[in-house]
């Protein structure tokens, strides 16, 4: 789980062009949207692509995505639960 979370943070930084943000700076349990990193709707959609591309899991709707993308932790839990 720790390894996954560490890599996930790096993937997020790269996919979302978060310049000057280091993996260590991202709080695993903090909300990604509205506070924390302050990501927006396009970032959410890009994270959905990231999860499909790097982890092979397809999120079907933006609503489904909302719950999963709450924090790095919830994303990691989702990936572990759904990975084939």
């Amino acid at each position, binding site marked *: 789980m720790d390894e996954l979370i560490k890599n996930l943070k790096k993937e997020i930084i790269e996919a979302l062009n978060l310049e000057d943000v280091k993996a260590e700076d991202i709080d695993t349990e903090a909300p990604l949207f509205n506070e924390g990193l302050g990501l*927006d709707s396009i970032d959410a959609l890009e994270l959905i692509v990231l999860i499909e591309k790097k982890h092979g899991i397809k999120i079907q709707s933006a609503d489904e995505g909302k719950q999963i993308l709450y924090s790095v932790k919830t994303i990691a839990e989702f990936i572990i639960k759904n990975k084939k």
Partner: protein
Amino acid sequence: MEKVYFVADNIISSLGFTTSENIDAIENRKSGINLICDNSLSQHPFFASKINNNILEKEFLKLSDSISYTKFEKVCIVSISKALNKINFAYKTSDTLFILSTTKGNIDLLNPLCCPTIPRDRAFLWKSAEIIKEYFHFYNSPVVISNACISGVVAIVTGSRLIEQGLYKNVIICGADILSEFVISGFQSFMALSPQICKPFDLNRNGLNLGEGCGTIILSNKPKKENNIIYCAGAITNDANHISGPSRTAEGLFLAINKAIKQSNTSLNENNCFISAHGTATPYNDEMEAIAFERIKINNFPTVGLKGYFGHTLGAAGVIESIAAINSLKSNKIHSTLGFEEHGVSIPVNIVTKTTKKENEFCIKVASGFGGCNATAIFQKI
């Protein structure tokens, strides 16, 4: 200041190749949106409106037997030809301007497997516009407007302002966009497409349908004998809020409609004016429009959304929908908002639900697009 008259037009869409074919379909509440199964456009079937390629080829062959035009260019050439057949003034002179409104033009050329005989530089919008200009022997360099989904309304506003200033006598506006894997993929990545025929302003709306279409409008400083519609006023604004989501307070659209109404110097009310909405049927767009209408206190004006017939035709939308609005003013009929069943925005709005005999003097046409842009044009029957 010169008056600007709408003297001829044409619509090409899945509903037909003439304005009257399209208007007939709208009056009969017939949608041009269907389930499209085409691997060259999308891996999965999707709802969209598509122009009949066979008929397009037949229509184009009446004009030229050259194989060196793309589908996008053929659609524009056929549409402009049909509109030009309805006027009798010289248009190859310096006092006529050609404006092309498109978001992506020949974007399918970015795929090397597509149209191998067409030079890749036709992906440049100005190059494609030049090809169309050369076909008709227009005098002036074409103007290309590419402002996302408001391009069509911007073209009408821009063309009208140029005639008002006396810089041109006539302006030929052609708005067009074709379906492409490029655009479909993009909207799919936005999760913006509805898995059914779209439902503008409806409670259960869940996204837009894309559409293929072309609209041509010819503007002139000289009126027709009768049944004249003029450009009354217009405005273009920006939300200054977000590049893909509309302002939650509808700031840009509010400013645009407000400005246009002030500029029109007319008294508009629910008995003499209707609204031709943008109505893409995404949760956010339609809500934003309703908020704008309420802020200006025009939300009780009869409101028509046509994307249930055409889908969202992007660069063509503003032109096609304006042609329908102008037709409404001329024929004293308001069209219905296909797909709307149950009120679904937070503001009361007056959505027209069946083709209705109604005399109106004015129409407010609105559009909003990516980049936070908004545009309004007001048309008047005189």
